């Protein structure tokens, strides 16, 4: 949906129209060059200090820009690197080299073997390379991305000066390695102040040259920059300005794919309320400031800039939604941008105007807001031992991962397991080539005489597959812990100054590791097809099923149809298959509960798939659930695309039979509705009742695509006509035309609910 320019104020229209004017690709490599220079200049320093000097240099040299029409200062790029941990530093530092984002998984394994002084031919050395093979072939997804909620809120209240004082106090009592770490953090802390002062000077220069009508805004900007260079934010405008520039600086240091904002409507509201009460700002002016921030979000091209809105205030016993919630929802509707990603903490008794704003945003088809159960999400975090007070302040990171702002380094995207892969490999035992990735036990499948045995074997292999990954991730975590420190991010995270530890080394309060699953619905549907057709009805043998999958069901139309029409599928509220899902996830959650990482944290289970259900599906052959080779796997915990045929309540009833409390790393349930569906008042009411019910029954996340099939097909055929079409993928939204075809096909194949 195109942006609704008509509802922007003239000042915002001007910013909107000029938003791409100063984008300059040539600036992008300069960040890496700055780091490189700093490394050359400080060859003897510790790595964390080298990084701090790199950051310092990069901020000094970074292009900054303020347009005459701008309300907010700031100018950001999407840098070309993707992960946070280049390993080999020092003389052979290659700024372009990033493991685990560029397919260099074996390189990463070698580096870890070297760092930990492992025997390459020993058990662990071999395992690391086995894991690297698995990642290359999409048995796993491994992404060394931080994914984090920086401590923006704390920064607003203390300012960079306040944080610096904290650092200096810590330095006074520090010893050993802590000293260098704190020094590094302080270098970054100061660099941030200097960077904001550069903007202050630029704002003053601009003001001197500006047309009279722009001077007031530029003057406000210059004054705010002067204040926030080291002081705390005192007004709504100063808070938003500090927020944005800090966000911008974080991307200069590292690119963990997601710097998310947490509960932006909550921590900005006190500033808003005070300004409005004192007559310093009108609601309309606040709206323009939020719009200006949204244009920054939407123009940087950074992915997964997630904001969290809404929620329930337990202390006050009422909704936490406020005017800033409404302004944020309205800005998102107006621009219909892919960024920021909007997550909403849903609770019953939502104020009518907030629900209306949510619906209006949903109708843009962007898939925003995604809804999260306010109560259950906090409870999921509490299960990990996080105190209620912190858990209740959860925000969403990246896609759908619950995190504690400013206090948690969760590595939410470090590992995803393709659940369909072990099943595929078990069937491959019957083929001449054998399994494509190791199994714990290769079997003659004709010897398996009951479904229970088949299921036991599957569990055994899923655990075997998972253990390789978890053990490898833990080794990599130890090996890489000081390879790519992020001292500036550490300044913002609680505990790092005090402990004298970088955030990547466990400096902050909570240090989890995400382990997500993918393709669950394909697995339970496949298991049910095997149970039904092989063991119950005895119409096919396991070998025949394996051969049909190996042949991608070529010439097996009848089998394919029996699978699709006569076997149970997850998502239709049929107990047997739904309970199989519930049992498998509960059993897997028990396994995850036992896992610990070397940073003193736990593993947390995710049931969402980003875009990996498409990638993993591409690299997974045909499955007994009727999936053809190359087709996507199911999205998050949603049913297999097009296999649910009893409507959204049946899907929800199916999903909530699974205990979702262990899903502390988030989950996704995607429902697709035709755009005309939301037009009737009774339908709008029903959607709300549907959400109320879903969350009352224990749901964690629910997202809706409001888009029709014809539009999507047309966008595939004529991408040039649909450059602004944003759709919900899995836990995030993206421009449809930029998605790969498998993902596009997957979205088209999802069951669409319309006027029945």
């Amino acid at each position: 949906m195109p942006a609704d320019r008509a509802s922007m104020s003239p000042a915002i229209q001007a910013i909107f129209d000029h938003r791409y004017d100063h984008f300059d690709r040539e600036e992008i490599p300069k960040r890496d060059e700055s780091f490189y220079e700093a490394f050359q200049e400080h060859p003897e320093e510790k790595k964390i200090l080298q990084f701090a000097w790199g950051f310092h240099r990069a901020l000094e040299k970074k292009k900054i820009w303020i347009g005459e029409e701008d309300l907010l200062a700031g100018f950001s790029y999407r840098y070309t690197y993707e992960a946070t941990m280049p390993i080999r530093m020092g003389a052979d530092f290659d700024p372009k080299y990033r493991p685990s984002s560029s397919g260099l998984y074996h390189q990463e394994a070698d580096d870890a073997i070297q760092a930990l002084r492992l025997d390459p031919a020993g058990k662990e050395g071999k395992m690391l390379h086995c894991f690297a093979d698995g990642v290359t072939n999409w048995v796993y997804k491994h992404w060394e991305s931080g994914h984090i909620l920086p401590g923006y809120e704390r920064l607003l209240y203390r300012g960079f000066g306040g944080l610096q004082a904290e650092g200096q106090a810590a330095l006074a009592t520090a010893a050993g390695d802590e000293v260098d770490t704190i020094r590094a953090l302080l270098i970054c802390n100061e660099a941030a102040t200097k960077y904001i002062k550069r903007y202050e000077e630029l704002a003053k220069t601009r003001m001197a040259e500006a047309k009279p009508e722009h001077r007031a805004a530029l003057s406000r900007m210059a004054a705010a920059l002067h204040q926030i260079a080291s002081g705390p934010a005192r007004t709504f405008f100063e808070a938003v300005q500090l927020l944005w520039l800090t966000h911008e600086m974080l991307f200069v240091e590292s690119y963990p794919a997601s710097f998310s904002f947490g509960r932006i409507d909550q921590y900005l509201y006190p500033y808003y309320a005070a300004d409005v009460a004192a007559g310093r700002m009108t609601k309309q002016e606040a709206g323009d400031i939020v719009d200006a921030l949204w244009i920054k979000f939407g123009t940087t091209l950074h992915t997964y800039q997630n904001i969290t809105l809404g929620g329930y205030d337990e202390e006050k016993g009422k909704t936490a939604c406020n005017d800033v919630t409404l302004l944020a929802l309205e800005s998102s509707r107006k621009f219909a941008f892919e960024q920021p990603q909007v997550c909403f903490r849903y609770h019953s008794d939502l104020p009518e105007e907030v629900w209306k704003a949510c619906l209006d945003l949903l109708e843009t088809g962007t898939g925003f807001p995604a809804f999260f159960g306010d109560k259950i999400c906090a409870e999921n975090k509490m299960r990990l031992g996080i105190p209620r007070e912190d858990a209740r302040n959860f925000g969403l990171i990246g896609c759908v991962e619950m995190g504690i702002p400013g206090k948690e380094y969760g590595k939410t995207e470090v590992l995803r397991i393709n659940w369909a892969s072990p099943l595929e490999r078990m069937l491959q035992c019957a083929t001449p080539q054998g399994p494509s990735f190791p199994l714990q036990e290769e079997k003659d499948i004709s010897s398996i005489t009951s479904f229970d045995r088949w299921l036991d074997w599957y569990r055994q292999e899923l655990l075997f597959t998972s253990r390789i990954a978890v053990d490898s991730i833990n080794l990599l975590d130890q090996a890489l812990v000081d390879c790519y420190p992020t001292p500036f991010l550490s300044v913002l995270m609680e505990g790092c100054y005090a402990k004298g530890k970088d955030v990547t080394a466990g400096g902050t309060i909570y240090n989890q590791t995400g382990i997500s699953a993918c393709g669950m619905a394909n697995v339970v549907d496949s298991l049910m097809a095997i149970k039904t057709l092989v063991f119950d009805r005895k119409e096919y043998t396991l070998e025949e099923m394996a051969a049909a999958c190996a042949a991608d069901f070529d010439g097996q139309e009848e089998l394919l149809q029996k699978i699709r029409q006569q076997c149970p599928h997850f998502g239709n509220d049929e107990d047997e298959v739904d309970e199989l899902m519930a049992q498998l996830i509960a059993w897997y959650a028990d396994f995850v509960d036992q896992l610990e990482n070397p940073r003193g944290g736990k593993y947390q289970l995710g049931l969402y798939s980003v875009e990996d259900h498409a990638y993993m599906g591409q690299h997974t052959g045909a499955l007994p659930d009727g999936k053809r080779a190359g087709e996507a796997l199911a999205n998050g915990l949603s049913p297999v695309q097009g296999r649910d045929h009893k409507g959204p309540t049946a899907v929800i009833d199916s999903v909530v039979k699974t205990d979702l409390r262990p899903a502390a790393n988030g989950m996704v349930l995607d429902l697709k509705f035709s755009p005309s569906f939301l037009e009737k008042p009774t339908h709008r009411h029903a959607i709300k009742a549907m959400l109320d019910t879903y969350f009352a029954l224990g749901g964690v996340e629910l997202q809706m695509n409001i888009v029709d099939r014809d539009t999507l097909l047309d966008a595939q055929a004529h991408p040039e006509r649909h450059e602004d079409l944003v759709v919900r993928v899995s836990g995030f939204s993206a421009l449809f035309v930029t998605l790969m075809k498998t993902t596009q096909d997957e979205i088209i194949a999802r069951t669409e609910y319309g006027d029945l």
Partner: protein
Amino acid sequence: MQGRISNIQRFSLDDGPGIRTTVFFSGCHLRCAWCHNPECIPAGPVLYFRAEKCTYCGKCQQVCPAGVHVVSDEEHLIQRQYCQACQACGACTAACPTGALQLRGRQIEEEELFSELKKDRAFYDHSGGGVTFSGGEPLLQKDFLTRMLQKCRQEKIATAVDTAGCVPYETLKDVLPWTDLFLYDIKALSSELHLRATGQNNQLILENLPKLLSDGAKVRVRMPVIQEYNATQQEICALGKYLAALPPVELELLPYHGYGEGKYRALGQQMELLHAPSEAFMTWAKETLRHQGIAVIDNESVKKDPKRKGEL
């Protein structure tokens, strides 16, 4: 006890308040020209063929005792001219691997049906919804319907009965104690028009409604509005006059939609080409009826704010 139904539809939002599960009963004695549930008209099972799912495997042809199916490489003819010969025995639907062939109008045990109806109970509770018995004409299976209504009442599930009211009053009166809401269809006030459009006289229908109301039933009157039949000033005014003389009752006007088209095809039947009335007519009709004191339910599409014209 068993009943005969065509379909169970969950997340049904247009057959009474809230989120509902609608049960479509088989059998109807009206033949409304605009019927969008033609598979519910026969009182027995009926062969239902969804051509887009057919792979021309020919299994139906092999098992059909009556020679109804003729399948070639790229065509599947159902010899409707011999459809008297089709006994809806179900041999072909059992053999069909793709679900292209189905029987609609199956016998169902009360327990099986009720267990389906209970499944969305949490959604009913949160939305003010419940179960709607529709069809077809559910009152043609009064005993089964009563049984289901009683079970719902026992479990505190709200119920609605969607009826054309063209039954002896005693039938309505018998289900009344167990029914929370009647969706009561009036298709036309003019008896000549009603006969032409539905094949039945409307006298019983028009006589039953006042009795139902005076016996304390909660009723929502629904009138399908079809350009070619009842979308006339005369009909709307007559409806207003008729309702104005009754105890207050809410009214829903349902503009014609052609969603039933695929069903006609699946039954090998032709659908009469009909149209929805103009928006202007609907607006006029509602205003007129409201003037006469009728509570017309508004569930029109939310009109987009005209100032929100998008541009990039």
